C-alpha cells in the first residue's frame, strides 16, 4: 500500500520542514509549540507506518530492504538506509513514544515562555528547542535505519549532539550545564569505543573504511580472528552499553535526565537509551552473528548488576525525575540481562530459549518505552504545576491533579511488573526463559543464569518498594509545601498524552498475544528456527513456554479480575452491608491534628532498606546537638544528616569529576544560548568526525 522509501522521504521532509518552520515562527508564540508538536506527531505517524510495513513484510530472514541510498549528500561518503525487522521494531518504539510525547510537549513547553508579570525572566528560545527536537527525533529514526558504518556513526553523533543541546536547554541552571558536560563527555567516550569497534570490524584489509555497508561488514566479520571479534564485541559493549546506561557508564544518566525538559527526558529514557540496546543487538545478533557463551554471560552479569544498582539508588533518591532515571538504569539492566541470556542460549545452540529470552527483552524494551515516558511525563506535569521535583516537598497531589495521579499510578503499577499491566507480561516471559534454562547442558551457564535470576527477583521486589515510595509520597496524603498545596491539574494535551500511554500500558498487558508473534518473528529472523523444542507458542489468547512448562493468558486474567470484582460487589450488596461512609479526621492518637510534618517522608520510607543495604550505600551519619549553657541535657538545635555514597561517582569518576567541573566552567563560555555558537560547535565536531573517518 505504501512505498517504504516514499514514507521515509516524507518522514525526513516532515522533520526537516518542522525544524525550519518552528525556527521561523516567533520564539514564544503558541504556534511555535503547536508546530513543533504537530510535526513531531506527523513524523511519528510516518515512523509508525514504516514500522508496520517492516513488521508485516512477509520475507524470509531479517526481511531487509535497502530503502534509500544517497550519494553526495555528505561530502565524504554515501548515506544508506535499510529497513529490516529489528529496525522496524525500534521504529515502532520511537513512534509509540514519540507521538504522545510530541503531543505532550505542546502544552508542556509553555513553561519556558516568559510570564507577563516577569518579562524575560524565564524566557527560553523555543524555536531553537524545536529545531533540536525535530533533529533529535529524526536522528533516532534514521540511526535505526542506517546501514553503513559512516551513516550509523554520523547519525549516532547527530543524535548525541541534538540530545545534548536539549539537555542543556535550561542553560541558566549551573546543574544543567554540568549535567550536559558530563553527558557530552560520556557519550563521546562511548563514541570513541564504537568508532574503534567499527574500524576493527571492517577486517584487516579494509581497516578504516567507513563506507562499508552492514551487509559487507557481515561478511568481513566472519573472517575475523576470534580475538579480534572479542575485542570488537567488548568495544561495542562499552560503547552501546554506555548509551544504554549500564553501570559503570551510567553516571551521566541520573544527571542528564532530570536536567532536560520533561518531554526530552521522556524521549531519552523511553527511546534513546534503548538505541544502545539496538546497537548491541545489531552487532551481536546481526553483524557478528553470535559469539561465544561468555559474551552473553558478560552482558547478563553486567545487566543484572545494573538492574540492582539502579533500583537501589532509585530507592534512596528523592528527586522524582532522578528516581525515574535510576529506574531507567535498572530497566536497561533487565533488558541487557534478558538479551545476554538470549545470547547464552543461542551460543549453546538452544534457539528456542534464545527466542524466548529475546522476545522478553524486546517486549520489555517496548513496555519500558511506554511506561517510562508516561512516568516522565507525569513527573513533568508535577514539575510544571509545583515547580519542584523534590519529593519531600510534594504530597497530596492526587486531589489536586487527579488525572495525572491516575496515569502516574498506572505507570508505577506497570513498571513494578504487576498484573494485568504490560510490565508483568515482559517480566513473566523473561522469568520463564530463565526458569527453563535447566534445558541447557552447560554447568557454568547455570550459575550465571541462577545469579541473573536472583538479581532479577531481588530487583522485582525493590522496584515495587521504590514505586510505592514514588507514587505514595508524591501524590498521597497532605501536601508538604505551599507549592504542592496550590498545584493544579495538567493542561488538556498533557493529560491526553499521558492517557494514551496509560491505555497502552493496559492494552499491551491484556493484548500481548497480538503483538508477541511479531516479536517472535523478529527473533527468529536472526536466531533461526526454534530448536530443540518450542520456546514460545502463542495460541489465541494464551502464551505457552517450553513443553507444557508455563502458560499465561493475560486477557483472561483481566476478564477474571473484572468478573470477580463484579461478583464480589454484587454479593456484598446482596448481603446488605452497611454502605454508610463518614468522613473524619485522620486518627492521630486523640489530641493533635495531623500536619505534613507528621507524614512519612521519602527519606523515611526508604530508611529501612537504606539501613539493610548500608554495606552498599555506606551512609555517613552526622548528628549534631547544640546545647546552651552548662547542662548537656537541654538541647537547642538538633540536626541530622545521613546521605548515601555514590560509589562510581566517588571512587571511579571522582578524579574525573573534578576535571569535569573544570571543563564545565570552560564550557560555559560556549553555553550562552546563542544559536550561532552552538551551530559552530556542532559543525566543528562533525568536521572532526568526518576527517577522522575518511580512511
Amino acid at each position, binding site marked *: 500500500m505504501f512505498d517504504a522509501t516514499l514514507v521515509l522521504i516524507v518522514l525526513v521532509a516532515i522533520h526537516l520542514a518542522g525544524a525550519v518552520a518552528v525556527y521561523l515562527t516567533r520564539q514564544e508564540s503558541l504556534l511555535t509549540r503547536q508546530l513543533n508538536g504537530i510535526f513531531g506527531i506527523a513524523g511519528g505517524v510516518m515512523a509508525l507506518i514504516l514500522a508496520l510495513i517492516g513488521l508485516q513484510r512477509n520475507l524470509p530472514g531479517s526481511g531487509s530492504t535497502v530503502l534509500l541510498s544517497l550519494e553526495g549528500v555528505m561530502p565524504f561518503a554515501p548515506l544508506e538506509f535499510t529497513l529490516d525487522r529489528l529496525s522496524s521494531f525500534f521504529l515502532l518504539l520511537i513512534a509509540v513514544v514519540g507521538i504522545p510525547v510530541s503531543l505532550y510537549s505542546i502544552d508542556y513547553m509553555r513553561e519556558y515562555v516568559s510570564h507577563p508579570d516577569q518579562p524575560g525572566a524565564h524566557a527560553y528560545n523555543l524555536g531553537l528547542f524545536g529545531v533540536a527536537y525535530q533533529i533529535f527525533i529524526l536522528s533516532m529514526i534514521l540511526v535505526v535505519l542506517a546501514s553503513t558504518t559512516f551513516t550509523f556513526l554520523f547519525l549516532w553523533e547527530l543524535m548525541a549532539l541534538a540530545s545534548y543541546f536539549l539537555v542543556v536547554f535550561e542553560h541558566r541552571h549551573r546543574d544543567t550545564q554540568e549535567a550536559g558536560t558530563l553527558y557530552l563527555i560520556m557519550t563521546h567516550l562511548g563514541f570513541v569505543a564504537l568508532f574503534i569497534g567499527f574500524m576493527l570490524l571492517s577486517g584487516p584489509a579494509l581497516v578504516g573504511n567507513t563506507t562499508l555497508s552492514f551487509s559487507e561488514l557481515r561478511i568481513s566479520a566472519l573472517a575475523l580472528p576470534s580475538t579480534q571479534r572479542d575485542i570488537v564485541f567488548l568495544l561495542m559493549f562499552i560503547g552501546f552499553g554506555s548509551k544504554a546506561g549500564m553501570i559503570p557508564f551510567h553516571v551521566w544518566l541520573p544527571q542528564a535526565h532530570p536536567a532536560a525538559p520533561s518531554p526530552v527526558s521522556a524521549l531519552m529514557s523511553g527511546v534513546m537509551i534503548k538505541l544502545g540496546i539496538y546497537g548491541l543487538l545489531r552487532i551481536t545478533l546481526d553483524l557478528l552473528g553470535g559469539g561465544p557463551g561468555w559474551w552473553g554471560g558478560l552482558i547478563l552479569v553486567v545487566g543484572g548488576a545494573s538492574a540492582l544498582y539502579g533500583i537501589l539508588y532509585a530507592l534512596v533518591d528523592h528527586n522524582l525525575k532522578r528516581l525515574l532515571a535510576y529506574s531507567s538504569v535498572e530497566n536497561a539492566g533487565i533488558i541487557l540481562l534478558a538479551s545476554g541470556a538470549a545470547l547464552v542460549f543461542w551460543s549453546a545452540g538452544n534457539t528456542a530459549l534464545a527466542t524466548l529470552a529475546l522476545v522478553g527483552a524486546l517486549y520489555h524494551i517496548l513496555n519500558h518505552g511506554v511506561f517510562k515516558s508516561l512516568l516522565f511525563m507525569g513527573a513533568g506535569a508535577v514539575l510544571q504545576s509545583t515547580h519542584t521535583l523534590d519529593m519531600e516537598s510534594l504530597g497530596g497531589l492526587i486531589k489536586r491533579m487527579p488525572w495525572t495521579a491516575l496515569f502516574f499510578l498506572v505507570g508505577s503499577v506497570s513498571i513494578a511488573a504487576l498484573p494485568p499491566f504490560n510490565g*508483568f507480561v515482559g517480566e*513473566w516471559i523473561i522469568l520463564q526463559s530463565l526458569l527453563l534454562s535447566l534445558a541447557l547442558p552447560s554447568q557454568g551457564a547455570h550459575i550465571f543464569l541462577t545469579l541473573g535470576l536472583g538479581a532479577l527477583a531481588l530487583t522485582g*521486589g525493590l522496584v515495587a518498594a521504590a514505586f510505592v515510595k514514588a507514587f*505514595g509520597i508524591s501524590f498521597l496524603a497532605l501536601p508538604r509545601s505551599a507549592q504542592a498545596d496550590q498545584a493544579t491539574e495538567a493542561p488538556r494535551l498533557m493529560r491526553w498524552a499521558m492517557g494514551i500511554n496509560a491505555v497502552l500500558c493496559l492494552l499491551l498487558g491484556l493484548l500481548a498475544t497480538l503483538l508477541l508473534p511479531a516479536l517472535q518473528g523478529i527473533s527468529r529472523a536472526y536466531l533461526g528456527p526454534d530448536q530443540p523444542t518450542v520456546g514460545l507458542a502463542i495460541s489465541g489468547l494464551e502464551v505457552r513456554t517450553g513443553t507444557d512448562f508455563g502458560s499465561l493468558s493475560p486477557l483472561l486474567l483481566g476478564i477474571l479480575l473484572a468478573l470477580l470484582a463484579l461478583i464480589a460487589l454484587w454479593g456484598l450488596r446482596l448481603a446488605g452491608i452497611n*454502605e454508610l461512609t463518614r468522613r*473524619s*479526621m485522620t486518627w492521630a492518637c486523640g489530641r493533635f491534628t495531623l500536619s505534613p510534618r507528621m*507524614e512519612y517522608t521519602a527519606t523515611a*520510607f526508604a530508611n529501612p532498606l537504606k539501613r*539493610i543495604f548500608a554495606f552498599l550505600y555506606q551512609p555517613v551519619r552526622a548528628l549534631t546537638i547544640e546545647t546552651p549553657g552548662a547542662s548537656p541535657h537541654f538541647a537547642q538545635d538538633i540536626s541530622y544528616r545521613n546521605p548515601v555514597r555514590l560509589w562510581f561517582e566517588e571512587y571511579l569518576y571522582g578524579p574525573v569529576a573534578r576535571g569535569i567541573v573544570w571543563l564545565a566552567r570552560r564550557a560555559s563560555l560556549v553555553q550562552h544560548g546563542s544559536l550561532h555558537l552552538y551551530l559552530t560547535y556542532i559543525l566543528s565536531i562533525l568536521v572532526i568526525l568526518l576527517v577522522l573517518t575518511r580512511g
Partner: protein
Amino acid sequence: MDYVAKFLIAVVQLLIVLGASPVLVSLIRRLKARLQGRLGPPWFQPYYDLAKYFQKESVVSETASWIFNFTPYLQFVCMLLIALFVPFYTAMLPLDATGGIIVIMYFFLLSTFFLALSGLDTGSAFGGMGSSREMTIAALAEPTIILAVFSISLVANSTNISTIILRLGSDYGLLFNPTHLLAFAAFVIVTIAETGRLPVDNPTTHLELTMIHEAMILEYSGRHLALVEWSAWMKLFLFLSLLTNLFFPWGVATSLDLLSFVAGLVIFAVKLTLAAGAIAFMETILAKVRIFRVPELLAGSFAIALLAIISFYVL
C-alpha cells in the same frame, strides 16, 4: 473436563477460601490461647467479627483519596482470583492454564502494593510506618519466593500448579529430592514473612510502633476493615495451602470423581490443621525479632533457596 465441572470446581474453590479461611484463623487463635492457659475465642468468632464490621459504618479520613476506598476491594478480588489457581483438595484447576505460580506471586504483590499505598494515603505516621516496613519485607521476600518457585519448577518441570502437583504426586521420590526439601525450608520462612506471623510480625500486638501489617490498616473501619481482614485471612489460607500442597501433595485429588474429592477434602483439612498447629506452637515459643534482623532471616531463606537450585544442578 466439561464446562459444568470446570465451573463447579471454580465456584467451590471460591467458597472454600471464603468460608474456611476464618476457621483457620480461629483454629490458630484457639490453639494459641490453649497454650497460654486460656480458653480462647469461640470457633465462629471471625465470622461474628466480619458480620459486625459489615454492618457498621465506615469512617474514612478526610485526607484519604480513592486509593483508600479502592484498596480493600482490590485486595479482596486479588485473593479470590488467586484462589482459582491454588489447589486445595483437587489438582484439577479449571483455569490453571491462564497463569501459573508466577501469576499468583505477582497478584499477592499487587495487593501488597496497594495496601502499602493506602497506608500512606491517610497521612498518618503509623500508616507510613507500616507501608515502609511492609514494602521492605516484601522487597526482600520476593527473591526468595521466585527462587523457591524456581526450585519447585525445576523438580516438577513446570510453573503451572496443576502440572506441578500432578507430577510431584505421581512420583513421591521427587519430594525427597534435596532441592525440594531446601525449597520447602525457604518457602516456610517466606510464608511467615509474607503473612505477617511471628517472628517477623506479631498479629496480636497493641503497640502501634512495632506493627507492620496492622499499622497499615489502623485507619480502616466498617466494610473496608471487613474486606481487609478477610483478605489477610485468605492470604494466610492461600499461602498455607500452597505450602502444604506443593510440598506434601498427598491426597490432592487428581481425577474427577467424587470419592477422591471427598478424600482430598478430608486430607486437606488435616494438613491445614497441622499447619495451624505448627504456627500456633511457633508463635507460642517465639518472640518477635528486632525488625532489622528480619532481613537476616530473609537473606538466610534466600541462601537456602539458592542452595536448593545449586543442589539440583550438582546432585
